[in-house]
């Protein structure tokens, strides 16, 4: 279970780049808008990590948009209507998403393959429609002007500064999102390399055989789906806080599909695949902005060509470079 020197160095370089390298480059170039892009990447990567985890038990999850939306609404409602601190609403949003996942998962996790994919896709649509229909979510108007996260201090020692008193919330959100992402992927890495991960892998490959060796497959499916949705809820809640608003259209079917694409593109066999996939897809999309109305055309063409010629994901190309599997 020990880490090799090479792995530790990789992690060190990674941390250096995101916490020191990126801020320096942005300060030097003055492209402050990159903070927003990178923050989005980090948060979407958290939600994508959940999708990846459901794939690890052999289920294609196109419903993460639903859980991100649930997380965003729960946090917004708790902060705006109940006056909670954002930092408490964040885990609450994750837990609520996980709870919903358990309730919905009980019936739908029995479905496999394309059936599960289709029902989760439908689920995203249900979440949007529910947000439109419920009184507490304010219908199509959504919840706007959500206050920025307040400060947290224990025994007078400030742990997290008050975001609203900050000059540069972009940097603060960037740092927060990156920390969350790192914690998520560290947890994911541990999980995959622990016994639970091995059991998931056995289920991914053959559920019948897994149950014959005593794996309680329905229990593990629920646990994994709950963890996956927890990630989705956290990512969504953080997003809502940055945008300071949440609407039924904040996370839609296209977002769910994108979460899935992030995982596929990064490569399903690699824990850090979804992170890379999110970065490439989101950044790629952003860079293509200059092409105006051709943005979508070029983006989708590249996507199709990538799948056509690298059907097993980006990381299937480079064995050796950055393989932290």
């Amino acid at each position, binding site marked *: 279970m020990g880490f090799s020197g090479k792995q530790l160095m990789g992690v060190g370089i990674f941390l250096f780049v995101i916490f020191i390298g990126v801020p320096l480059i942005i300060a030097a170039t003055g492209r402050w808008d990159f903070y927003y892009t990178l923050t989005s990447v980090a948060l979407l990567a958290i939600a994508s990590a959940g999708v990846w985890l459901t794939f690890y038990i052999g289920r*294609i999850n196109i419903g993460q948009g639903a859980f991100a939306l649930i997380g965003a609404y729960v946090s917004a409602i708790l902060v705006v209507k109940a006056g909670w601190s954002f930092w408490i609403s964040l885990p609450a949003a994750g837990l609520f998403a996980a709870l919903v996942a358990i309730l*919905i998962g*009980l*019936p*739908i996790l*029995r*479905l*496999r*393959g*394309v*059936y599960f*994919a*289709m*029902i989760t*896709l*439908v689920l995203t*649509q*249900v979440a949007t*429609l*529910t947000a*439109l*229909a419920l009184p507490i979510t304010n219908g199509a108007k959504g919840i706007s002007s959500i206050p920025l996260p307040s400060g947290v201090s224990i025994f007078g020692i400030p742990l997290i500064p008050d975001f609203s008193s900050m000059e540069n919330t972009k940097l603060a959100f960037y740092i927060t999102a990156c920390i969350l992402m790192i914690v998520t992927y560290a947890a994911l890495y541990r999980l995959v390399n622990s016994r639970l991960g091995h059991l998931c892998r056995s289920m991914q490959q053959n559920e019948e055989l897994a149950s014959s060796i005593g794996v309680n497959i329905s229990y593990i499916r629920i646990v994994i789906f709950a963890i996956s949705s927890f990630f989705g809820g956290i990512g969504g809640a953080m997003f809502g806080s940055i945008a300071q608003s949440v609407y039924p259209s904040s996370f839609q*079917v*296209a977002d769910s*599909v994108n979460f*899935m*694409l992030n995982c*596929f*593109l990064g490569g*399903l066999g690699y824990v850090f695949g979804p992170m890379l996939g999110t970065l490439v897809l989101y950044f790629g999309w952003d860079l293509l902005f200059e092409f105006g*109305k*051709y943005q*979508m*055309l070029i*983006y*989708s*063409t590249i*996507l*199709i060509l990538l*799948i*056509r010629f690298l*059907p*097993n994901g980006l990381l299937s190309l480079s064995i050796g470079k950055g393989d932290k599997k």
Partner: protein
Amino acid sequence: MEQILANGVYLGSQYAMIALGLTLIFALMNVLNFAHGQMYVIGGFVTYTFYGQWGVPFVLALVMSCVTLAILGALIERYLFAPVIKGSAREESTMLLAAGIAFFLDAVILLVFGEKQRGVPKIIDGVFNYDFKLIMPYDRILICFLAILSIVAFIGLMQYTKTGRALRALAQDRTAAQLMGVNVDRYSMIGFALGAMLAGLVGGLLVTITGVNLGMGGPTSIKAFMMVMIGGAGVISGAIWGGIILGFMEAIGLALLYQYGDITYLLIFVSLMIFLAIRPQGLMGKPWG
């Protein structure tokens, strides 16, 4: 009541055609065609262009929709799906490809036809009115009739022609079909083209009633998925039942709950989930088929 039934038949017949195309592609290649809704939209725009813009007779415009989509489907299968299915370690890669194609077609539609809602002149004027109990414009009746005719023709094709038999053999067991001498590559392409053509045909038919716009693609795909789940994926009778059931649920829901707006679809979604919890393989599907 009569009105609800008539609306149900009308909606159901259109939906069944959409679901048929999707289920055919799924049965043949195990591909979940995310781009099905976009294909439907393209079919609508082609008929709009020929019939609405250039004044070509409606039937001819419909044929153009079919031909365009059949060619598009064949090309997509031949140059994208077939090689990806061969080269990929996981079946699911096709899902990614299908999503990419959906984005691509959306982009093409945006560039070629724009974002605006487009409609065409009515194909027939007048309204059928039975004592104000049943009101149905004649064009809807005609479209419904044409849709049912197409479904019957499709079933006939699948049942009684050599192509249909080959497609059914392929859907049942790819390897066995190959052993029986079915040209698997060729018939996969034909099947995909046929599925895409059905989507295009409905698009062409419905443009005369609802018009067409860029945003219709995604929701249409989702509805098609629901129908296929209700009926059972990859089963032709299931797709027809799925279409009819969804059509009726919508017609009834919209009639009874219209003041609540989107709640109809929410209820349909929730009942679908409960239904699938009890019967995961759908009405007609084989368990884990």
